[in-house]
């Protein structure tokens, strides 16, 4: 797909609230690969019947076998993951082995079965007119920024060639940055890039050029720092939130976050929300 000013290749800007709907019911997919990427893995599954997800949307995943037979009889419920990438009918998800659900998913090998329900939720929307896209990610939260970068580049609009700022714990985690194009990095231990927080880099970027729309995903303290910086400067920001959820489609009411208008369900009102909706993350 060509990138740049060729109008024939240009897609319409992506408006808010118009994301693909999930087929009703979970689908049994076949794992196409599970690749090590530093401290992470990238799980790939062929999804020939699935609609192409919007960037920022997510899916509920569960292993077809041995889901519910681990330590403590967990995992039991499916787990929510942002789509990291979509390549010709193949869905990619970035994983970090942090609990019984992610541990089981990290074990899956080519040919194994994977239950998927999705695409779900509200994703990212195009930058406001005249603003450049500025992508800020922390840890495994960089996942939805990769597919958003793909989308912006394919659209060839103002968001193409977006500046990318990524923060990680250490060198092994920073290898995850390979999922995105050229990026400025920060690490907590200083082993790669800036020694400190990715939000330090965000401050520098905004000092240089404030005409940006910020797209952020990462741990809550990082998102709160992004929200506060953008609010102080009057810069629009779209935050991809994470919450433990049982269903992913609005049934369980378990994934709420407090917002100015009351509790939001991250699964159906998000996961991407306008930063102005939140008093704090």
């Amino acid at each position: 797909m060509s990138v740049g000013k060729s109008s024939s290749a240009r897609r319409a800007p992506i408006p808010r609230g118009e994301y693909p709907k999930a087929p009703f019911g979970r689908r049994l997919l076949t794992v196409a690969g599970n690749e090590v990427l530093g401290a992470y893995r990238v799980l790939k599954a062929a999804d020939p019947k699935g609609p192409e997800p919007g960037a920022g949307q997510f899916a509920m995943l569960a292993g077809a076998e041995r889901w519910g037979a681990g330590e403590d009889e967990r995992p039991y419920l499916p787990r929510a993951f942002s789509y990291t990438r979509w390549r010709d009918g193949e869905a990619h998800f970035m994983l970090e082995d942090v609990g019984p659900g992610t541990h089981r998913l990290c074990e899956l090998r080519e040919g194994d079965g994977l239950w998927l329900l999705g695409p779900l939720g509200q994703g990212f929307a195009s930058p406001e007119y005249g603003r450049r896209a500025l992508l800020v990610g922390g840890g495994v939260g960089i996942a939805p920024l990769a597919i958003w970068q793909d989308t912006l580049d394919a659209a060839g609009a103002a968001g193409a060639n977006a500046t990318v700022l990524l923060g990680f714990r250490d060198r092994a985690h920073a290898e995850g940055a390979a999922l995105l194009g050229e990026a400025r990095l920060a690490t907590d231990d200083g082993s790669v890039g800036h020694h400190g927080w990715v939000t330090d880099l965000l401050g520098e970027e905004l000092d240089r050029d404030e005409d940006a729309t910020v797209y952020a995903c990462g741990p809550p303290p990082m998102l709160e720092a992004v929200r506060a910086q953008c609010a102080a400067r009057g810069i629009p920001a779209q935050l991809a939130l994470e919450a433990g959820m049982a269903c992913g489609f609005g049934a369980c009411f378990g994934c709420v976050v407090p917002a100015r208008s009351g509790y939001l369900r991250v699964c159906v009102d998000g996961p991407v929300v306008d930063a102005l909706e939140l008093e704090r993350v």
Partner: protein
Amino acid sequence: MSVELCGLHLDHPIVNGSGTFDAIAARRVFGEALDREFPFAAFVSKTITLTSRAGNPPPRLWEAQAGLVNSIGLPNRGLRGYIERDLPELASLPVPLITNVMGSTAEEIAELLGVCDEHEEIAALELNVSCPNVHTGLDIGTDPVQLERVVAAVRPATTKPLIVKLTPNCADVGECARAAEAGGADAVSLINTLRALALDPSARSCAVAAPGASAARAALPRRWLGGGGGGLSGAAVRAIALAQVAAVASSVSIPVVGMGGVQTATHARRLLDVGARLVAVGTESFRDPTVGSQIARGLAAASAP
């Protein structure tokens, strides 16, 4: 495999447990396919209260051993919001609507039932009695004497079928079911979630008492759920549900809606075998939103000649 419950004619015996499926949200997520392939033979609303409730602060969920502990806190728009905003959308579902209500006094419950009674879109009412009585602090449904008195007091407020949703957190669920029947219930449903607790996994498990502090207080571990305690559902409760449904079905002559840990047609069949008229699916719908239809098809296939 059609079935009748209190005058309602249903295509099959599978419904949803109250508060485990939001048909309005599901329509936004899945579109028209939801109505085409609606997984339940009747739709049971989440619990509606007289005034709106925001629900409990997060975290609201804890994954337990083959189960789920939740402390959602019954968020809802309140009776007026439900009637004005939710009812028109729920009325267009392809199946009958059962509205679940809860109040902390007989007066409140009678008002809820009375207002719902005026709306023909509502086919039946379910009364959640897992609510503390404002005077005694005890859940209305845990004490058979109180339960019979409350059901009898609110019964005249509606001519629609009235299903009493029993709590499993009581000494003798069969006795509570008989009390609901004596008070005038047309059916009973069970089980609601079992009282449960989850602790913060990051909290120290062997706290050391600070000088001067009582040892018991210092050792109190931090609760995980924002609402404090919670209710357990899912596969973990299945055998308990089977025992309670069997006890209730042999105690009353009104129909029983059985639920608790149902994941497959076999699990549903067992509840029907011990005397349930309908079976509700709850937590399993979180894992697969179409499981209700799969269970209904499985039951029909197994009973085909």
